[in-house]
């Protein structure tokens, strides 16, 4: 019987040698949404040795049209994406070691998780986290493959520390207005195309075909069949604070503050308290029961309250589903989780 990778080994740039290399490599996939799912599935099928996958979110029915690792069952149960992803990926290939983290990534917790990682794949949906990934990539000399998609558009670039410009060279500050799934919608094929380019670059790097890496930034519109490449010969900024002569890695040194983010592609706002909590769900359930129907699993507690669904994680993060408005979400949050109330439900 042919081995499961026979056809991939027959592809001459990979060969048996490349396949053996791939099986020793460890990648970190940041985000298990649409791009993260598609990249993870392709690389796990390809036989990658180890995957660390990180996501802060839970599966929703509005994810299913494009996030290929998830099913209706997981949307109903509100399974955290990282957990659902691991389960599906392990069914696809039991030989790949998969570490899944339900985690709101920041500079500090990511830095611990990138040790011994050969490559980082961008499956995120915002530039705040990408600027952190970029600084970590430079500091630890780990390449990362940027990917982003919205509407029928996709954009990707392979950042190699010491060789290519970095994200901070290309954008002197975090872009304020990016096209997101909220502003432009998103179709599955744009995701698949972006992820296919990312995975192909990953395969090149991981099978040590470095000379084959694409050197330009790629932008495409799959609906109109257009493509634009941007050469990066003049992209590197010697004064860049992330990769230049006087580095400061500015995005690794941000102070802890409470964060409120609108999540990509749906009616959800995330609130992250300024300090980490250790919530005991039984306390929170008691507190919320009189306001609405409460359900919980090992990872998340949900409460239906008026037209909202509130999802609470052990670390204190709260997702308010049913609004895109930060102020509205904030006032719901404060009804239950005002700083004075937090003591009631915090177990240290």
């Amino acid at each position, binding site marked *: 019987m042919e081995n499961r990778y026979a056809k991939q080994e027959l592809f001459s740039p990979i060969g048996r040698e490349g396949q053996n290399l791939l099986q020793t490599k460890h990648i970190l996939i940041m*985000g298990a*949404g*649409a*791009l*993260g799912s598609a990249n993870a599935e392709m690389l796990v099928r390809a036989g990658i040795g180890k995957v660390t996958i990180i996501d802060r979110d839970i599966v929703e029915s509005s994810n299913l049209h494009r996030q290929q690792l998830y099913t209706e069952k997981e949307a109903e149960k509100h399974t955290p994406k990282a957990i659902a992803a691991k389960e599906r990926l392990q069914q696809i290939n039991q030989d790949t070691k998969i570490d899944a983290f339900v985690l709101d990534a920041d500079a500090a917790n990511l830095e611990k998780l990138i040790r011994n990682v050969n490559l980082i794949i*961008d*499956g*995120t*949906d*915002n*530039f705040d986290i990408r600027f952190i990934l970029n600084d970590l990539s430079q500091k630890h000399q780990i390449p990362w493959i940027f*990917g*982003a*998609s*919205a*509407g029928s*558009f*996709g*954009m990707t670039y392979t950042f190699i520390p010491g060789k290519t*410009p970095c994200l901070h060279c*290309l*954008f002197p500050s975090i*872009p*304020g*207005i*990016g*096209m*997101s*799934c*909220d*502003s*432009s919608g*998103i179709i599955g094929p744009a*995701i698949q195309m*972006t992820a296919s380019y990312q995975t192909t670059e990953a395969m090149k790097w991981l099978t040590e075909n470095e000379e084959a890496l694409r050197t*330009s*930034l790629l*932008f495409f*519109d799959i609906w109109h069949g257009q493509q*634009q*490449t*941007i*050469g*990066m*010969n*003049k*992209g590197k*900024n010697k004064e860049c604070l992330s990769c230049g002569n006087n580095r400061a890695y500015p995005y690794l040194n941000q102070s802890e503050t409470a964060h409120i983010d609108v999540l*990509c*592609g749906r009616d959800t706002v995330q609130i992250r308290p300024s300090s980490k909590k250790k919530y005991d769900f039984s306390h929170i359930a008691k507190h919320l029961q009189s306001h609405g129907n409460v359900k919980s699993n090992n990872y998340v507690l949900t409460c239906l309250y008026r037209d909202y669904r509130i999802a609470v994680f052990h670390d204190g993060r709260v997702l308010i589903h049913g609004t895109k408005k930060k102020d509205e979400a904030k006032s719901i949050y404060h009804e239950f989780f005002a700083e004075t109330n937090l003591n009631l439900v915090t177990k240290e």
Partner: protein
Amino acid sequence: MIKVLFFARLQEELGKDNMELDTAGWTIDELKNWLEAEYNLDGVTQTMTAVNEEFTDGSHILASGDTVAFIPPVSGG
């Protein structure tokens, strides 16, 4: 003349995907500021810019015959 190409959101806002402009000698930043004011083109100052398909920063001075592409950052995923 300078040929200017607009992509994605900029195309939708402008209602067209390119323009011919007589802006040789201008910097990229000057061109962006002018476009923003003239066409009310929201966020053009934050776009990535390529001149003749090479990444270029805002201080680059345009020469006749250049093709400029403005590509808005995509953030979703």
